[in-house]
């Protein structure tokens, strides 16, 4: 009895392995916790505390006011100060930024009317100005900011306030087709850089009193307008509160693009998966709002953010709904397949070629052996060579001006591939695999999701190179585990896959006919469950 127990006590190497097995996860965990804590800080540490806008009211005296304004912004070469006299008596000045007030006719009329105005009725002066957005401000800070944003401003002697009369008419891009998400069928309108145009585009999607757009300013040094859009009576109030909280916590001196916001409000910054979706398409935003999601729009960028995001959204395209349900379903399943190929194909190739020759059909095995004769590298190196050159090629293709891009694709793809095979560096079979992988990753409708898969593909290749098929499975399980723990604004990332909610599955792998999709996604816990 005792001896049999003794014989079963593992040797010291096993104990050492057990020790390693204990230590490494703890190390990983500690590193993770540290990194995570770094992430916790991101919401509070950077930037100084909110500058309390010092109450520096405008005074009644014209010269004092002018002094104040000039000291604040007058040194700028693009600030134009034009002094006029109202009715020939009262001193006044029009201030604006060059390039923001291009309508010369309007300017002339304003000056004209100022000159002709009766100096005695300054109280009703506002009503006389054309344009709807004329308003008065009393704080000098606000006033000068208004000028810098692009308003044409007016100060009149004897008034304790400045007038912002015509809104900015700064040059903006025409509304055009969204470049990153082009469709064959569906509206060709994409967002532009102007927030007011973007919100207008949202409104133009259809009439609804429920569509709420709330805006606030973000950024500490340079402020920008940010709008949060949602559907009242549909969105879950908890979600809305959470979004508002997170946006309010952003502390950054300047927010250049909605990507900044994305990185601030996402749940887990260590995850390779994006937890916020970006889109250029108003129709996509509206569809998301109707599902109970919240959209964040930022001035100065055509990319709106949608939260929360689930994994399935990354593989959906508006076209799925515009086409009839059968093609829509087919295309969607195709995309799921493509995502799988683009993630796994190279690692499967490695595990088959270097680990499991017995699992390939005999005839295929013979063909591969024939084509791989003379390839000097192991499968991993071979795949890496080709994959990395494809990635470089792709990156280069984006930077190149449009007319050259396709030409480079041809040169890079065809010539290099063919030459590499001829030179015996890679096998033709691999070229097929890599090409299929690349093409598959193009078919993913959300560009940033495609990038995620590209990163993960390399990780998968490493796993496969160490443990073959077993490694690939471990990698797949790792991804699944990670996804099932990941949440985007409290919504589990892989829902609606699990827990099973059949009503949500109607719009997951398949896209059932629209008349069957009567309910809003349950996972969003919307206020109205029925689509009215």
């Amino acid at each position, binding site marked *: 009895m005792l001896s049999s127990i003794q014989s079963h006590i593992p040797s010291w190497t096993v104990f050492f392995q057990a020790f390693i097995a204990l230590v490494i996860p703890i190390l990983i965990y500690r590193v993770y916790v540290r990194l995570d804590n770094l992430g916790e800080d991101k919401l509070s540490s950077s930037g100084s505390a909110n500058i309390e806008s010092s109450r520096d009211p405008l005074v009644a005296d014209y010269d004092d006011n002018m002094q104040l304004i000039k000291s604040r912004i007058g040194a700028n070469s693009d600030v134009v100060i034009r002094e006029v006299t109202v009715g020939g008596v009262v001193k006044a000045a029009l201030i604006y930024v060059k390039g923001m007030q291009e309508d010369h006719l309007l300017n002339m009329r304003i000056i004209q009317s100022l000159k002709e105005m009766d100096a005695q009725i300054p109280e009703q002066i506002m009503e006389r100005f054309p344009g709807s957005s004329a308003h008065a401000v009393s704080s000098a800070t606000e006033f000068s900011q208004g000028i810098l944003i692009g308003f044409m401003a007016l100060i009149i002697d004897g008034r304790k306030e400045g007038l912002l009369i015509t809104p900015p008419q700064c040059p903006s891009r025409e509304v055009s087709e969204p470049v990153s998400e082009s469709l064959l069928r569906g509206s060709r309108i994409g967002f532009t850089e102007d927030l007011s145009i973007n919100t207008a585009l949202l409104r133009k999607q259809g009439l609804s009193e429920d569509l709420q757009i709330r805006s606030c300013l973000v950024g500490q040094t340079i402020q920008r307008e940010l709008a949060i859009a949602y559907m009242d009576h549909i969105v879950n109030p908890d979600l809305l509160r959470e979004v508002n909280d997170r946006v309010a916590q952003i502390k950054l001196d300047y927010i250049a693009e909605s990507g900044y916001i994305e990185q601030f409000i996402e749940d887990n910054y260590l995850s390779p998966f994006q937890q916020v979706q970006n889109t250029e398409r108003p129709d996509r935003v509206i569809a998301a709002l109707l599902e109970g999601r919240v959209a964040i729009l930022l001035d100065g960028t055509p990319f709106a953010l949608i939260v929360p995001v689930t994994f399935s959204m990354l593989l959906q395209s508006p076209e799925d709904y515009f086409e009839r349900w059968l093609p829509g379903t087919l295309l969607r399943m195709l995309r799921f397949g493509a995502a799988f190929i683009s993630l796994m194909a190279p690692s499967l190739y490695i595990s088959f070629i270097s680990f499991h020759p017995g699992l390939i*059909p005999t005839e295929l095995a013979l063909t591969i052996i024939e084509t791989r004769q003379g390839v000097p590298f192991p499968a991993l190196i071979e795949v890496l060579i080709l994959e990395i050159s494809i990635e470089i090629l792709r990156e280069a293709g984006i930077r190149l001006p449009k007319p050259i891009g396709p030409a480079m694709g041809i040169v890079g793809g065809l010539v290099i591939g063919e030459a590499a095979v001829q030179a015996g560096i890679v096998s033709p079979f691999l070229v097929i695999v890599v090409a299929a992988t690349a093409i598959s990753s193009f078919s993913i409708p959300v560009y940033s999701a495609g990038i995620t898969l590209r990163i993960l593909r390399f990780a998968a290749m490493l796993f496969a190179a160490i443990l073959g*098929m077993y490694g690939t*499975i471990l990698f797949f399980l790792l991804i699944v585990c990670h996804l*099932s723990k990941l949440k985007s604004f409290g919504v589990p990332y892989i829902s609606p896959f699990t827990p099973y909610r059949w009503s949500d599955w109607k719009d997951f792998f398949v896209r059932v006919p629209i008349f069957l999709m009567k309910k809003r996604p349950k996972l969003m*816990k919307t206020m109205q469950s029925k689509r009215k």
Partner: protein
Amino acid sequence: MAVSKSFLGPNDKITTSQAAIFLNNAMLGAGILTLPRSVSESVKTPDSWISVLVGGLIAILVVVLMLKLSLRFPGKTVFQYTSAVIGRYPGMIWCLILVFYYIVIAGFEIRAMAEVTMYYLLEGTPIWAITIPFIWLGAYLVIGGIDAIARVSQIVFPISLCILILSYLLSLRLFELDNLRPILGDGLGPVIHGLKSTVLVYSGCEVVMTLTAQLENPKQALKAVLTGVGIPIGLYLFTVIMVIGGVSVDSAVTSTWPTIDLVRSFEVTGFLFERFEFLLMVIWLMQMFCNYSCFFYNSSLGLSQLFKLPYKAVIFALVPVIFLVTMIPQNMNELFGLGDAIGYLSILLFLLFPVFLSLLALMRFGGGGGARHEKS
């Protein structure tokens, strides 16, 4: 209509479907690869499938009993209520045995997985290189709590079910009804004899006793549990029928991994994967991962609840323990011996214990209202 739940609240409750799949995954493990052999060895006639069926019915009974017992203590796991029923120290000892059992069964599953992998996929790779990443991955998942495990199970299970059924359907070309005949040629004797080895594959159903505490909707617990037990019974039955029908009792007895051998016995020419055993093994790896995670979770939950230890620390501490358990069997025979031992322990502890505990609970707290008494 109205929002019932907090949107961002911690999610440690699972839905009915998740509970069903969780239970299902706790029972579907390495058993499916060896069951046809172990049951044929003891039955020796083609009637093994009857044994599987009868064993399944027994398992259902036991599980329902455990469920009824656990439902008397809403929101409490077996680790929390046992002491209330049989006293603090006996309860403690009992729960420790339970934790030990879960750890051993987790180690067994990993070892079986490693043996299959080393034999068919990675000849020459040291065993620690196979088991340690697997254990780590499990720890990563288990830290996420029951919700994460249930989610992963729900992703993995449909895939493995599809592949399993597909493999079996493809093996229909080998299926001969004659291999399953005659039915009850030797009477009921062999069937009863085989019950012993079939009950073994249903070990794992004990997770019901912790599962019930985490149900979002305890009213549907019975439904969840019956589905969760029903699926593995169906799959085991299907497996035994297909394997015996496909390769005959004689071949099933001589093969170490009869289910894999069944799938290895045919080639689907002209298909990308001519060889389905590859798909089957790959998928079954994932299934075994879920299976092992269930036990890992239960043992760490048990320890942390018993001794009021932080959950994450327990998980880390259990990683080397599970690894050592994995390495204890020195060869295949010992591994299968360990499997049998687990089965017997399971019969001993979990057939008798719930009965005993239920009776005791009935005596102490009267019918039905046990928990309310407890609280007051």
